[in-house]
């Protein structure tokens, strides 16, 4: 089989777009213990914001990504203010309601194309693999530093013992809000990358299934593991393409694999591990170097 780089890079671009959103979700779910079914909503807000900023205002691509993240973040502050006090599944449902509302609202807004969609101006920059990798690298660096900062330690404390954290004086609500904001920001940027890769966006692209796919990626990779999120996002984006030889059976197998990972590796693929992978990669690299010599 001769694989084409154009095809593979197409998959990698989507993997990167998903990864960007998954990074944010990973913070929210893995480090704060909150679980969202509405991040496709933040992604769509980002996608439309970025598309409008470049197409109507003629702003540069990276400015549009920043505004996409900021605007999605701004909305998250409002939604978070209202819903972050909810517990467990009630929060999940509230985010589900948010995601669906946003989609229905975009379909309703004729000025930005409604259900028929919005076309990005031909003069706008097209998302390349380089953009996706660069944005993700910046995102990862920021995220890793955040997790290892005092802020990150407090987040973990909240995840483990919310009541105890409150007792020792951590403002739980404030920390949840900040994670929610950051996750929405990341999803918004992912939406901006998405819009400029497809050059055409429709509300129908941001259905509930997109939110659930992102969440599956986070849990699949392993909660509380950034490396896990990276692997989860890339693997699960590529999986439907890799399973093409199964024809109509490919999503049957996809479903079975998701269940199997949950059953066989109850903590996800990486199970909260980070550094082991890196030392493993280093071992592999040095071994290979040895082999060549």
């Amino acid at each position, binding site marked *: 089989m001769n694989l084409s780089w154009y095809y593979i890079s197409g998959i990698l671009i989507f993997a990167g777009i998903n990864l960007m959103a998954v990074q944010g979700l990973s913070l929210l779910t893995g480090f704060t213990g909150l679980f969202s079914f509405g991040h496709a909503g933040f992604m769509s807000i980002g996608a439309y914001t970025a598309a409008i900023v470049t197409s109507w205002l003629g702003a540069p691509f990276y400015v549009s990504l920043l505004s996409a993240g900021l605007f999605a973040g701004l909305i998250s502050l409002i939604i978070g203010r209202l819903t972050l006090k909810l517990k467990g*599944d009630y929060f999940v449902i509230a985010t589900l309601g948010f995601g669906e509302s946003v989609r229905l609202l975009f379909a309703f807004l004729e000025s930005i194309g409604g259900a028929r969609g919005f076309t990005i101006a031909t003069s706008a920059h097209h998302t390349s693999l380089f953009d996706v990798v660069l944005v993700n690298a910046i995102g990862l660096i920021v995220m890793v530093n955040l997790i290892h900062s005092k802020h990150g330690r407090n987040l973990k404390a909240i995840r483990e013992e919310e009541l105890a954290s409150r007792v020792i004086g951590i403002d739980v609500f404030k920390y949840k809000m900040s994670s929610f904001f950051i996750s929405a920001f990341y999803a918004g940027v992912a939406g901006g990358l998405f819009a400029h890769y497809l050059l055409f966006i429709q509300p129908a692209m941001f259905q509930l299934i997109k939110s659930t796919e992102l969440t599956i990626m986070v849990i699949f990779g392993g909660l509380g593991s950034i490396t896990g999120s990276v692997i989860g996002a890339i693997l699960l984006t590529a999986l439907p393409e890799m399973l093409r030889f199964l024809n109509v059976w490919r999503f*049957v197998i996809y479903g079975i694999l998701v269940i199997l990972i*949950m059953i066989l590796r109850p903590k996800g693929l990486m199970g909260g591990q980070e550094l082991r992978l890196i030392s493993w990669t280093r071992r592999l690299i040095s071994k290979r170097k040895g082999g060549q010599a």
Partner: protein
Amino acid sequence: MNVTFFIQVLINGIAIGSVYALMAVGYSLVYSIMSFSNFAHGGVIMLGAYIGYYSGALFGLPIWAAILAAMLGCGLIAITIERAAYNPLRKRNAPPLYYIISAMGTSILLENLIVATIGPNFKTYPPLFTERSIEIGKIAIGKLDLLMLVISAVSLFLLVFLIDKTKIGMAIRATAYNLRASSLMGVNPDTVIFIVFGLGGAMAGVAGVLFGMRYVVYPQIGIITNKAFVGAVFGGLGSLPGAIIGSVLLGIIEVMASAYWSSNLQNLIAFVLLIFVLIVRPSGIMGVSTEDKA
């Protein structure tokens, strides 16, 4: 607009709400015991619609027998799903998140299994009535709607009776209250979970057949259960009367929004209202507010 219009719309709302209710009780039952939202429920409902269709189309069973077949079939399917996808997680004390992902995997699996085997084509139940509606004054009521309402009411009544008045029901309620404590009291949680999934599945079977009979059968009908889910949350997760009341209310609110405001906003209003209810009453209308177990 006039009173006739209002009554007509109200009847439509109750009819939709009653189907939501049948779907929502399955969510609520499982939630009350295991504290997670069983997203595979929609898939089971879809299979129920197919079982009903084939027992009519292949074996020529009358509608009541088709419903019984679907109840039995879906009960077994729900139990199998529990064994395969949730039980291993329970053995490991996994948090609810993993159950939800496993449930979503199951839901993807079921939908695509039907696409791959039976195919994507729409199936329609043979018509039950030649004259489609009865007219009372100026109000027309679909006979299928009436039948649906009656069957839903009977099934829901039987379920509530079972939970409230029987020993099995008591065991379920005890387990819902506290799984560990009830097992100390001699209730076997495995048996309770077995029964709960069986009951939820049976209700899904009824819902599936009614839905298929009223509308049409295809692999993606599971999606409609999102509304039932909203209804369950609306009423308060884990509460059986809550699920029923919440679902019927949701049905009525939807049609009223559509009738007196705008049908463009029907679904939007449902979701916005959902968020609003949660903000005002964070555990739904009938839900018991759960304090953090610290």
